């Protein structure tokens, strides 16, 4: 359904050109949930904005394509893009607080969205009611203003709004980061059941590995503007092949495994205005060699069997033997790293 090919997105900044997204290729099939995982600065938000066509004024798509059901979104004019937005692709933003207009009621805002795309819609109010029921909100409250809703309710109202037109693709940008854990659970439940109802696919962008584990079919891990590993959820969580993925998994405590050590990856992500040659994770990787610092690895199949599990690492063959067994020990990741 969605095919991003070799996408390059740059920002112009006072430090020069920042290569926020560099050669990213991902695909999302119909009816599937794809999770993009990474930390701040890895480019995942930029990727989301590029797909939606809402890059800020100093951002631009340098090369590559974004194909949605065959049409290259990047090549469309703004007006043409607008027709896709909301109707086919809609977004659940990170913070509903900022996405809802405080001076209009929720009902007015949803109806406005409906009107733009379906001016001939005979009964927009019923859509509002239906959506509210779907997200578990009382339809009678649709005539209230955003500030009269609590944080969790606003997020749900936002979801109602973005799903009002039965989009085929939902893009959720950190949909639950700002929420408490019980609210987060409720919302994720809602989103899952809604997806079943309206038969849409979802692209979730988050730093929370646990959320991805529970909601997604496939995962792509991003680091410093590039995809470093991708595969099904079972593949990535069962047997990750990229050192960064392994490091990331160590950082999340598991309620069911209280004795697991929490390990952090030393160092910091590279400056994307001046990216290093070679593998961008090299200076933090316990397995890095000279080859890693000189040549940038490409996404390759990790083994002969699974065509859809790929990792961008020169030493995928050694992960099984050298890194994975030690990945959960703190010493593996200590400061003196490269050999």
């Amino acid at each position, binding site marked *: 359904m969605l095919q991003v090919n070799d996408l390059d997105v740059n920002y112009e900044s006072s430090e020069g050109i920042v290569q926020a997204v560099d050669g990213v290729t991902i695909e999302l099939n119909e009816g599937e949930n794809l999770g993009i995982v990474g*930390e*701040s600065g890895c480019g995942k938000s930029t990727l989301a904005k590029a797909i939606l066509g809402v890059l800020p004024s100093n951002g631009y798509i340098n090369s590559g394509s974004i194909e949605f059901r065959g049409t290259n979104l990047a090549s469309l004019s703004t007006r043409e893009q607008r027709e896709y937005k909301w109707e086919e692709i809609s977004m659940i933003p990170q913070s509903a607080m900022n996405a809802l207009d405080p001076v209009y009621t929720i009902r007015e805002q949803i109806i406005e969205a409906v009107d733009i795309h379906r001016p001939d819609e005979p009964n927009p109010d019923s859509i509002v009611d239906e959506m509210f029921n779907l997200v578990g909100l009382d339809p009678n409250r649709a005539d209230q203003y955003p500030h009269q809703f*609590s*944080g*969790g*309710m606003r997020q749900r109202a936002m979801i109602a709004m973005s799903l009002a037109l039965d989009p085929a693709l939902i893009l959720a940008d950190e949909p639950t980061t700002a929420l*408490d*854990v*019980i*609210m*987060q*659970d*409720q919302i*994720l*439940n809602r989103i899952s059941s809604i997806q079943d109802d309206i038969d849409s696919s979802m692209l979730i962008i988050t*730093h*929370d*590995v*646990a*959320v991805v*584990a*529970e909601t997604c079919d496939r995962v792509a891990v991003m680091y410093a503007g590039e995809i470093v590993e991708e595969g099904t*959820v*079972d593949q990535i*969580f*069962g047997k990750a092949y990229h050192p960064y993925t392994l*490091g*990331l*998994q*160590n*950082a*999340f*405590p*598991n*309620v*069911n495994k*209280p004795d697991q050590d*929490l*390990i*952090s*990856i*030393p160092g*910091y992500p590279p400056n994307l205005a001046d990216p290093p040659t070679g593998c961008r994770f090299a200076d933090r990787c316990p397995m890095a060699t000279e080859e890693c610092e000189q040549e940038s690895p490409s996404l390759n199949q990790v083994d002969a069997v699974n065509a859809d599990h790929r990792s961008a690492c020169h030493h995928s063959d050694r992960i099984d033997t050298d890194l994975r067994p030690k990945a959960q020990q*703190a010493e593996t990741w200590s400061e003196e790293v490269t050999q």
Partner: protein
Amino acid sequence: MTLLRVQNLKKHFRTESGLLTDITNKIRGKKPEYVHAVDDVSFELAEGETLGIAGESGCGKSTTGMLLAKLYEPTEGEIFYRGDKFSSLNGKKLDEYRQNVQMIFQDPFESLNPSMTVYDTLAEPLRMFNYSHKKNRIYRVLDFVGLRPPEEYINALPGELSGGMRQRVAIARALILDPDFIVADEPVSMLDVSLRAGVLSLMNDMTEEFGLSVVYISHDISLLQHMCDRIAIMYMGKIVEIGSAEEIVANPMHPYTQALINAVPVPDPNQDRSRVELPGEVGDAVNIPEGCRFKHRCPEYIEGVCDQEPALEEKTATGPDRKVSCHLYD
């Protein structure tokens, strides 16, 4: 030895304030309304112990932390520090308390004064209490929190540091007076995931090195389980359950605790968790319901019984050192 004893602590905030509102309320015969942020909380903290306070936003955990750090004065109730009443601390004893208690805040961007260098930020507490060897202390504490070499950091302004570094400076500031008690309010929730473990392990180190007692406030139970000896669960200003960290997570007794633990997503696609979906939302902290505050959402609600306020106490089913506030275990 008990470091802190909190007794029937309450903190209520006026919803509206001001001279004009007072007058108009009097005219209209309206009584002032209060947000019951902390409503009768009692617990003890032993020396060297790490206590976690868990709960969602609005449950009063942050306010409790600020009461412990003496940023707020309680509306009712008392806190005892090494046997001394908070309210009677003054002069030298108060100074002593101030040096012994420090706080680490959630937002690394806001925790540091943007116009003060790292050196100044760390020197400030030292200057207030006339410590000697300032430079030495600053260098050593910077080294301890992992900002090495210290020379590189002393002239930096917060704007030049990343979130993780700023939080380390905040921790250094908390440690520089060699305290014995720290309140940490969501210290890692705004940091990147891969940096959290580093800061958390630093906090473990500091607890050991400085012999600290820590009150760790967070909404993330999985984190608390990792870092704390005991955990207290708060809901709408009250503690609903308190006990050892392992037990609370392995065997939660209060329905709210159960829901909280069940709601935590697990980073393993093969582990299913039993979901208990709680209806509704956290209640209105201004108009408190009668009886158990959780009753409107509780899957175990018992008509009549739950309309009496349950007490936080040890029940037969729990064993020692575990308290639950729920009629299920009466």
